[in-house]
């Protein structure tokens, strides 16, 4: 059991290092796209460590407690996540719903802490974050329902192995509509434009993060990197057949994150009600169509 927990901590650490590097590389790529030199690839690390070294302010115990709870929840979630179909800390217990709901602990902790700061921008940001979550979760979960129903398991490793088994396709090919919905929902989860409404630095002063500085903000950056890793990895495992070895995983991971980032960088921002109406129009319709086709008619490519 202790070994498993240590492996889990290792996975969480790996998640942090990987996503921070990939995010740095992506800043470089975006810089090059915009005809800039862009920062060094390890700039994200410098930013995080700088934040951890500064002296911050605190608005009372809930402000700190929320951050600890949020980061703890996210680290816990990452510990369950398999990297490939072989590398997983808790074999058989990596149930899909753990990721959705344990991730919510992070969100709840952060929301609590942000509201606890007493800043109205933070509350508006939290409101927007939760509303966005209401928007993207439902289509995404309908697609996942289809996947679990087809593969007969809700374990992330199980779903990967199901796709890797000879004769079964990656789900992005087997369920093309579902794959598109999954990717749009992933953009929402990552808070990429056009669904960046809850950060909106120019509009609501970076929303929930408005009162954070120093170590709390640094911890939230770590939290953000790990949660991005969890979300992108969910997509890789659910739709892209997971990975059999770590290099395959790295390639798929990098491709998915970079694609999401590139799409983000050529988009504007939706209003919050547009986010909701958008997700409940096309993605939900596509997800339901895909589910009906796949479950009731059994037409799976």
């Amino acid at each position, binding site marked *: 059991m202790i070994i498993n927990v240590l492996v889990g901590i290792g996975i969480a650490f790996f998640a942090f290092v990987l996503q921070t590097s990939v995010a740095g590389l992506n800043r470089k790529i975006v810089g090059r796209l915009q005809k800039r030199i862009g920062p060094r690839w390890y700039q994200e690390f410098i930013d995080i460590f700088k934040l951890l070294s500064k002296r911050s302010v605190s608005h009372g115990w809930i402000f700190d407690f929320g*951050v600890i709870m949020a980061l703890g929840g996210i680290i816990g979630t990452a510990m369950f996540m398999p990297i490939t179909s072989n590398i997983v800390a808790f074999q058989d217990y990596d149930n899909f719903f753990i990721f959705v709901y344990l991730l919510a602990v992070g969100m*709840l902790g952060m929301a609590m802490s942000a509201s606890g700061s007493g800043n109205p921008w933070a509350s508006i940001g939290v409101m927007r974050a939760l509303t966005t979550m*209401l928007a993207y979760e439902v289509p995404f979960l309908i697609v996942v329902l289809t996947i679990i129903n087809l593969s*007969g398991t809700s374990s992330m490793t199980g779903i990967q192995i199901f796709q890797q088994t000879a004769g079964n396709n990656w789900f992005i090919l087997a369920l093309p509509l579902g794959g598109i919905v999954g990717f749009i929902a992933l953009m929402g989860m990552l808070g990429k434009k056009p669904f960046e409404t809850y950060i909106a630095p120019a509009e609501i002063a970076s929303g929930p993060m408005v009162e954070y500085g120093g170590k709390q903000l640094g911890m939230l950056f770590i939290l953000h990197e790990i949660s991005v890793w969890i979300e992108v990895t969910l997509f890789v495992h659910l739709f892209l057949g997971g990975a059999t070895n770590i290099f395959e995983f790295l390639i798929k991971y990098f491709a998915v994150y970079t694609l999401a980032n590139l799409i983000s960088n050529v988009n504007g921002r939706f209003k919050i009600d547009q986010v909701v109406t958008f997700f409940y129009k096309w993605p939900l319709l596509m997800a339901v169509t895909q589910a009906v086709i796949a479950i009731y008619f059994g037409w799976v490519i």
Partner: protein
Amino acid sequence: MASIEYLILILVGASFLAYLFTKLNTYLGSVFTILATMFVFASLAGYGFGMGLDTTVNYLPWFTFNQTYLGFYFVIIIAFVYLMVSFFHPYYLGQYKYKDSYNMLFLLSLAGIIGAFYTDNFLQLFFFFELIIWTTMFLIPQGKSREAAVSYFGFSVAGSVAMLIGIFLIFSSTGQLDITSGLAAISGTNAIIVFILFLIAGFAKLGAFPLHIWLPIAHGNAPHPFSPVLSGALVKLGAFIGILALVRIVPTANLLVDSINLPLGQWLVAILGSISIVFGTLMAIKEDDAKKLLAYSSMSHGGYILVAFSLMNSVAFAGGFYHILAHAIASAAAFMAIAAVARATGTTKMKELGGMIHKMPITYLAYLVAIISMAGIPPMGGFISKWLIFMAVINKGMIFVAIAIFFGSVGSFLYVFRPLAALFLGQEFREYKHVKEAPIMMLIPTFILMGLNVYTGVFPSFILNFINNILGELGYAALNVTSSSIINVFDGQGILNPALISLVFAVGVFIAFIIFILLKKSRSVSLMDTYTAANFVHDEHLLHYSVDFYAPLERLYEKHTNWMTKFYESLAKKVKEIGNLGKYLFMSKNIGTTMLWIITIIILLLWGVAL
């Protein structure tokens, strides 16, 4: 050997004693109420788990009692909620006009509940139901509004009349008044009608769509310590009747929804349950009063229970039963936290409150734990029940029901977070500078409920094993729960290890705490020292964002929420008009006309009897 009959008689006796004691001294009467409730709960817990209660009847003629796992499961939950709430009585009764009858009715309704769940006879069930309704009806108007009691009573009576007609139908077609055999024996068209009638009763008590109007009115306006009972305990009566109808009545085979292999009736109930979930969620998001918000959340959770019991398999049933427990605990805890705030500040309106965390940290924690459970987030009980329901729905492939349950689940983050942010977090208002944490007697149930919320989420095996007994009693396969509390559903389609999740979560929090504590200490600043785009704001009300919290989202559906209320309003108007017509006909000044009508009706009635 405790006997059910004795328990009921003791409670009835205790209720009159409580009346007398409260007349002498409010505090004395309330403490007596606590002791009486505690005694009943202790005897139930002590003898009931092994089905060891005595069912013989010595003093009450015509009454028969029978104990089942199903009934016991409900009765222990409800008695527990009653016990927890009774701790609040000493601090609240002073505010109410008829404090002496408050304690009496409270104990009498508990007697009714014990009777209702321990009976095997339809007429007794009806009798005890009426006892509960009539006693609680007089408790509700002691709060803010009398109309609340009227609408509660109206819907409850509609439900019990439906149930009574159902009972008559069963008796006329099968000649049985025994619950189990009566429901099993009925078949054909009568079965469908009884099914519908019982569900009307169940929906009315559960506050499910479309019979939900009374729920926010009654919950929101009931006395503060009675709202937890309403939400945590009394709506579960509806779930009980719903289970009787959904599980006990043998479904007619020719009415199956083919693609998901479910009887049509059950499928329709699942759809209605889904509408309850979505409707309750949307209304809760919109609501501005913390208690009404929680009432709508009860409606949404009632929808989950209906969905669970209409899926006809043991995983869903286990989820439903677990949800009844988890929601009872969480909802009671949340309502009690709100009650504690209301006691300190005198309001439950979210726009008038803020920053209570600095004054009432323990109440805040209780509320936090409760809403984590309500939202179905891991280390709490709500996650396990929701997970079981999710797995059952996914296994069945019910897409539209799934949309509703996922929507309700994510939506619950939205609405449970609102009171958290508006009441407890944010700016600390200067009006409430004098407020103190709730007294120790009120914190005892708070701590117990907090502990139970966590316990149900971390070690579910004890409760799930008990639920397995109920499933066996209902004729369904038991849930696969291994000793180390690993739940395995549908042969490995889902495996859950709640204890492991909690452990990993604890490890994560520990790591985060280490990171936090190693770094430089932060400078403490006041709540008003926030980023305001460099503007000076000296009024905390301006810096507290709690009104119309989800305004952009509400705007999307606010035009479409009132049609149900309007329907009931017009119905109430029609009823009033008919009443006026009757009044006009009977109570006219001409005594001869009145006499004529009365005689006509008596003749008609006699004619009907002679027929």
